[in-house]
């Protein structure tokens, strides 16, 4: 199973090389077999005899993090969607994306996503799941920003990343709390002990954290604002990530954990309420849109809300309907996105106000769109799968009993009405989408390109998806035993048996469906009268404004904070650095009782050494006050030569020699440069600056004093110097131990030292050599 999950990302490594040949053969053809093989692999599991599979791969055993994959009914359904629609999207993109585009980038991102998404739905380990989860966010970010030269793309990409990744952090917090409460990182073991989780005092926190993660990812109200902006991505991406798979990750998460939370009133309340609000808002907002993809985006939001609400209901029929609708939504919405892409591709616009009457030019696309939109609207026809799941949704919304508490009861009563209202708007925008694009008056003068039918191969993917719509519609029980019941079982935690049938008799769900169709049709036919209302009621924009305001404020204030210390003044940087070093080291020394002034075992003091030390100290202090260039060289030289004498006294002849040579050369260099540089000026800093400077220098000096004396008195380890003394001749073959250390024991250090010197020399040469070309750097 691990190969199936990682096949796309491993294959992504060679995509950049394959894309070099894109002028001979479109990269898409070369990589199409990968998702197809993965799809076939997962199809082989489908069947009524399916049993869940587990395979374990160790990753970070010390943290109990493993790549353990668990394939049950729910995972299987998602894995089939990911690989199946993935294959169709790759096929579609071959005709959608021109060869001049950066195909290598596109397919690499897409395949990274494929692995990440498969990982999300198959991981049994919560931390592996989280890692894959964030990878889906990242690849979505890259794909939305694929046309990065467009400002809207960048905006959409950043928005989706900010919202989904902050939700991801919340998810991580929830998963960590779950791990702490249950003592395991495996989802299967967590599901096995729901009582422990429900009775823990962390339960409200866990629930809220997980819900935030799921709501941001699945674009639930009020986090739905990122999805419409994500439509800036190329259409194959919108069809794949932002309708069929990635946005369902939140649904998957809720479905996965509903075996634990199912039946909890708070879980029911939050999920159903937010789901239904999302359904109503999303479908209402979709009616107002004029961009084909924006309509589909809001439609996706509302459908996701519907699935989320059904998971919240938690009854067996609701869960079965949710699972069924996940499959149905992927088929009709995927095909509609592809049709929208085709319309955009062939006419040059996605603005529904400019489109119309395309049926005569694009009969195939129009037929496909007809099935897609009518299925989405839930029109009661026996060959449209959307109707079945929608009617089950109504049915489920009516069967919400058994929850105690006044508020919960009120919600249970209101839910069916909200469901109908949401569905009416769904009907309206579905009709609007189809009739607005393919029927009505043909507006030739408004179209940038003369429309014509797309090539057959481009239509192939939507044709396959629409065939799915019809096949599921005609033979709904075909997928029932092999796939859907297994998925529903996995969510519900118990056996779910459900016969899907078209005709139930004259029962409330049918009346609800008919109400939707009749009221919806009235609204569509009298659309011109309602348009004003749609424009008056703002809904969504306030949330967008809050987001924009938040992001702008964040940027502005971080800018302000950064510029208070990153103001380009070298002195300020030094002050901050040294003050922090002094404060932190000093505090650490103090807290850990590292200060130790009890000195023993010191060398005797002699007069000439004291004299040298005094002279050096005076010379060092003099560097501060001297204003004459020559005097400055002299006092710095005094310190250097004094140090050389100290080296002689302290048995370090090599150091003394080197120091003397270096000091001489340095003084010569100083002289050379001083000739070109202005004289030292009097220090002109303000008194406050001078005060700070004095405090910091003295503080740092004092710290070094305390540190050196304390360090002198403590020895925690045996010295390694004896090793060098003993082995200098034996191993290094030299009498001069220091030299042997430098060129033999620590030879590589010296090599790097030489390269530093070489680099400095090169830089100096460059700086001097090019002095004539002023400003031409």
């Amino acid at each position, binding site marked *: 199973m691990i190969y199936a999950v990682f096949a796309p990302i491993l294959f992504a490594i060679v995509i950049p090389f394959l894309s070099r040949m894109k002028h001979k053969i479109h990269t898409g053809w070369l990589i199409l077999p990968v998702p197809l093989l993965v799809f076939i692999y997962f199809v082989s599991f489908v069947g009524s005899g399916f049993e869940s599979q587990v395979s374990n791969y160790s990753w970070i055993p010390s943290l109990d993090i493993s790549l353990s994959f668990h394939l049950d009914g729910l995972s299987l359904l998602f894995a089939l969607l990911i690989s199946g629609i993935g294959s169709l999207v790759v096929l579609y993109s071959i005709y959608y994306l021109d060869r001049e585009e950066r195909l290598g980038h596109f397919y690499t991102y897409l395949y990274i996503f494929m692995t990440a998404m498969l990982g999300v739905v198959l991981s049994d380990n919560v931390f592996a799941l989280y890692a894959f989860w964030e990878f889906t966010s990242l690849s979505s970010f890259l794909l939305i920003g694929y046309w990065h030269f467009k400002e809207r793309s960048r905006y959409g990409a950043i928005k989706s990343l900010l919202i989904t990744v902050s939700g991801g952090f919340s998810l991580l917090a929830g998963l960590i709390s779950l791990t702490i409460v249950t003592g395991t990182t495996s989802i299967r073991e967590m599901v096995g002990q729901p009582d422990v989780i429900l009775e823990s005092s962390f339960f409200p926190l866990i629930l809220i954290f997980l819900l935030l993660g799921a709501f941001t990812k699945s674009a639930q109200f009020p986090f739905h604002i990122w999805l419409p902006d994500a439509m800036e991505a190329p259409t194959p991406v919108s069809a794949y990530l932002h309708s069929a798979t990635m946005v369902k990750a939140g649904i998957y998460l809720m479905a996965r954990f509903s075996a634990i939370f199912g039946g909890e009133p708070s879980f029911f309340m939050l999920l159903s309420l937010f789901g239904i609000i999302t359904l109503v808002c999303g479908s209402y907002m979709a009616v107002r849109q004029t961009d084909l993809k924006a309509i589909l985006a809001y439609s996706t939001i509302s459908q996701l809300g519907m699935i989320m609400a059904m998971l919240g209901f938690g009854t067996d029929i609701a869960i079965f309907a949710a699972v069924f609708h996940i499959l149905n939504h992927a088929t009709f919405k995927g095909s509609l996105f592809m049709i929208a892409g085709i319309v955009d591709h062939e006419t040059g616009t996605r603005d529904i106000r400019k489109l119309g009457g395309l049926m005569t030019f694009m009969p195939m696309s129009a037929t496909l769109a007809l099935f897609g939109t009518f299925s989405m609207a839930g029109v009661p026809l026996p060959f449209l799968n959307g109707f079945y799941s929608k009617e089950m949704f109504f049915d489920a919304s009516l069967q919400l009993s058994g929850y105690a508490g006044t508020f919960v009861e009120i919600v249970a009563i209101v839910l069916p009405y909200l469901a109908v209202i949401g569905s009416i708007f769904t009907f309206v925008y579905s009709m609007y989408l189809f009739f607005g694009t393919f029927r009505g008056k043909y507006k030739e003068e408004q179209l940038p390109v003369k429309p014509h039918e797309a090539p057959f191969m481009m239509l192939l993917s939507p044709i396959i998806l629409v065939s799915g719509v019809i096949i599921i519609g005609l033979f709904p029980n075909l997928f029932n035993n092999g796939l859907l019941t297994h998925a529903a079982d996995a969510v519900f935690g118990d056996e779910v048996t459900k016969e899907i049938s078209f005709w139930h008799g004259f029962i409330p769900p049918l009346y609800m469906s008919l109400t939707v169709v009749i009221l919806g049709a009235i609204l569509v036919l009298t659309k011109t009268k309602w348009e004003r209302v749609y424009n008056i009621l703002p809904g969504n924009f306030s949330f967008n404004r809050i987001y924009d305001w938040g992001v702008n404020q964040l940027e502005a204030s971080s800018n302000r904070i950064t510029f208070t210390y990153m103001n380009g003044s070298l002195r300020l940087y030094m002050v901050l650095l040294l003050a922090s070093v002094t404060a932190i080291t000093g505090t650490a020394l103090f807290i850990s009782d590292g200060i130790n002034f009890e000195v023993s075992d010191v060398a005797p003091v002699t007069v000439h050494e004291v004299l040298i030390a005094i002279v050096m100290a005076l010379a060092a202090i003099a560097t501060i006050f001297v204003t004459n260039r020559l005097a400055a060289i002299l006092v710095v030289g005094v310190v250097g030569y004094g140090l050389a004498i100290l080296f002689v006294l302290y048995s370090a002849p090599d150091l003394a020699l080197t120091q003397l040579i270096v000091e001489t050369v340095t003084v010569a*260099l100083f002289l050379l440069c001083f000739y070109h540089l202005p004289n030292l000026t009097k220090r002109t800093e303000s008194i406050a600056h001078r005060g700070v400077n004095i405090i910091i220098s003295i503080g740092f*000096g004092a710290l070094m004093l305390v540190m050196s004396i304390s360090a002198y008195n403590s020895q925690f380890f045996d010295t390694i110097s004896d090793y060098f003394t003993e082995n200098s001749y034996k191993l290094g073959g030299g009498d001069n131990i220091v030299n042997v250390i430098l060129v033999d024991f620590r030879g590589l250090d010296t090599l790097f030292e030489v390269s530093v010197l070489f680099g400095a020399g090169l830089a100096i040469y460059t700086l001097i050599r090019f002095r004539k070309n002023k400003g031409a750097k």
Partner: protein
Amino acid sequence: MEILMAILASILFATAIYNLLQKQFLRIIIGTVLLSHAAHLFLLTMGKLKRGNPPVLVEGVTNYTDPLPQALILTSIVISFGVTSFLLVLAYRTFTLNKSDNMDELRGSSDE
């Protein structure tokens, strides 16, 4: 004697830092030179002073000064020489281009 050297090193550190905090490029260079002197003295003192013969093997002598700090310092002297000369040339270049050796007038470009 080690205490005296520790005090000397910390005086060197303090003056080095004070020079580093100045605006004039040359004073900053002087600061770095003093800083490396201070660090060398610090290292040498940590290895204990006057504890034996120079670390050059001689027949019959077993008592040598700790060679390790010396090896470190030797590396450091050479590196700081490289840094000092680079800084000097940089100062020279900066002055010829910008006609200023005041760090406050040489702040980064405005588009950052």
